[in-house]
């Protein structure tokens, strides 16, 4: 491929594009991938990650993770740290429209033998309680005014109202609450789009999955035990969703605002309008940061309400309380964010705004902000795979500093949705999956076909590339037995 000829292999899993590749690049770009994953990556990744390298104030490198693919503005899998003290910018295109799209993993004390006979009933109960699909709404009744409180408070709002356990907050990234979220910076339109969608899954690649911890898939038994995953064939629940229409509107509002001021007020020129940005230390940049934090909080709250309904569904099907079923969270992690973090660059600590779009923060063992119970182990990282192939729980590692402690977020799509629809039929796929022991419920058969396992990269390859590159290490591989596909 033409663009790949301009890329130099730095080490087994690191590929670099130097600053002379494109006019205006402030730093080189680096793609983390095995040779196989790199060769399979779409060319747009190189174009997009080098566009990111042109943004003002970017530090070290513009990165793309091993699951990277075509995005808009940033590639999916993009990581970029900006130095506010050096004119660094904040860009909605570096976070994604689905602010705080992320993963939550919950354990149970049930085993495969107990759940398998009831999987159909369980998935149907989950499907009823967790609205999914186009414009899904109605899981939680809140007024517009309450919604404004919720987006300032995050998951804590839900727990305070009885939708969750206090421990849930400790086991959520940033305790499910971003300080500085300011509802005066969000539009009425964003509230209109989102206030009725708390506790809903959405669609596309969003899902809610019942998975099993097979003994042969436990990579680090001691680590798995620390996460409470110590029973052979233990059942866990994983779900993937974000801030719904609210977050999408916040991103759209500020994309438009930044386009209006970027060149005229700040003299910033960009190569793709989706990279619209403003200096972090500007009124517009600060307003977006405060509004984006509302998006982060909405998403933490969204996953908190979904968790509450997941617990109710299990309780109904197994006729035991969620406490008796020991339905404790393992962790909740975001993969579409920008956060102010302290990182060492050239031997000194600097406060940087780290954009992660389709990339997961993976703090190393011992770092502050990790829950006390996991501090020695490292930050839990949840990488969701396709509904056919499985997912992973990993942890951050010490030499992850190279990528500002960031790693992959999923399998990464390898095929467009339209192409996938031509290759698979939803109903056939559903039957095929059921014959393989995976019961799938969906409101969209076309959407199901688009999410076929064959449309994704090999998740084992992605996880292995993150391990070899020193970004994260796997603890356990989780395989699905039931799936609500949004």
């Amino acid at each position: 491929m033409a663009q790949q000829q301009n890329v130099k292999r730095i080490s087994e899993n690191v590929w670099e594009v130097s600053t002379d590749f494109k006019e205006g690049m402030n730093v080189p770009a680096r793609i983390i991938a095995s040779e196989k994953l790199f060769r399979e990556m779409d060319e747009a990744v190189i174009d997009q990650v080098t566009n990111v390298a042109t943004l003002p104030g970017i530090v070290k490198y513009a990165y793309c993770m091993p699951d990277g693919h075509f995005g808009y503005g940033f590639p999916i899998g993009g990581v970029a740290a900006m130095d506010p003290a050096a004119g660094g910018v904040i860009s909605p295109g570096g976070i994604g429209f689905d602010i705080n799209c992320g993963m939550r993993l919950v354990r149970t004390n049930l085993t495969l033998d107990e759940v398998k006979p009831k999987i159909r009933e369980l998935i149907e109960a989950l499907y009823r309680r967790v609205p999914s699909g186009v414009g899904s709404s109605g899981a939680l009744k809140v007024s517009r005014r309450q919604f404004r409180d919720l987006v300032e408070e995050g998951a804590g709002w839900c727990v305070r109202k009885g939708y969750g356990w206090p421990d849930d907050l400790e086991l959520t990234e940033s305790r499910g609450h971003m300080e500085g979220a300011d509802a005066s910076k969000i539009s009425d339109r964003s509230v209109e789009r989102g206030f009725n969608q708390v506790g809903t899954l959405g669609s596309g690649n969003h899902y809610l999955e019942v998975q099993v911890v097979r003994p042969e898939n436990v990579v680090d038994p001691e680590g798995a035990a620390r996460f409470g995953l110590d029973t052979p064939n233990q059942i866990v629940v994983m779900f993937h969703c974000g801030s719904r229409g609210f977050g999408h509107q916040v991103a759209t509002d500020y994309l438009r605002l930044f386009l209006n001021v970027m060149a005229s007020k700040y003299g910033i020129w960009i190569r793709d309008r989706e990279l619209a940005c403003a200096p972090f230390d500007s009124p517009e940049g600060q307003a977006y940061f405060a509004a984006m934090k509302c998006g982060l909080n909405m998403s933490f709250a969204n996953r908190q309400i979904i968790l509450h309904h997941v617990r109710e569904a299990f309780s109904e099907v197994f006729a035991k309380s969620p406490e008796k079923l020991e339905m404790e969270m393992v962790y909740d992690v975001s993969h579409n964010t920008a956060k102010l973090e302290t990182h060492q660059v050239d031997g000194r600590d600097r406060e940087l705004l780290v954009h992660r779009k389709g990339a997961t923060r993976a703090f190393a063992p011992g770092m502050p902000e990790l829950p006390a119970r996991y501090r020695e182990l490292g930050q839990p990282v949840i990488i969701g795979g396709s509904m056919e192939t499985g997912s992973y729980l990993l942890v951050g590692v010490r030499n992850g500093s190279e990528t500002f402690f960031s790693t992959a977020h999923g399998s990464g799509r390898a095929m467009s949705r339209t192409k996938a629809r031509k290759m698979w039929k939803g109903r056939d796929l559903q039957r095929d999956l059921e014959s393989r022991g995976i019961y799938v419920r969906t409101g969209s058969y076309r959407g199901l076909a688009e999410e076929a396992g064959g449309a994704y990269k090999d998740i084992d390859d992605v996880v292995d590339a993150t391990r070899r590159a020193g970004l994260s290490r796997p603890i356990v591989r989780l395989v699905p037995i039931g799936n609500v596909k949004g």
Partner: protein
Amino acid sequence: MLPQDGGSRPKSRHSERRLKGTMPYTFLDDIATADVAFEATGGNLEELFKEASEATLATMIEEPDSVKPRTERWIELENPELDLLLFDLLQELIFYKDAEQLLLRVIQIEVHGGGCGFSLRALARGEKLDPDRHQQCADVKAVTLHDFIVEKTLRGWRSLVILDV
């Protein structure tokens, strides 16, 4: 004044679709990996905007024809840029999908403008999403501006749109 139309064309693209089996919008295979890309065309701007709206609806549900005209909304928008006027129209349809669970089809539309900006007035009709009658596809999150194009061609107008889903 609007830029001049790019030549004559059939009266109705829908009738052309029915007669010839062609589509005035096409979903594109190889542009966006995880998102949905489409190309829409029209003999004039009004047709282009209607077809892009239909393509957005067809991204959300399988059969736009299954949407019955039970309620209506008037949409009035202004923008200094023509392409951003289309962007705003598609965003409006996405807004109604989330805020009121409304699926809307643009029935009538007028686009005005020229040197100092553009405006549109559109009548959209539709109904609330009914999972029993509307085969759902993808919940569109946003219109992206990545490679977003509205351009004049020899035969009329063309747009390229990538929707985040």
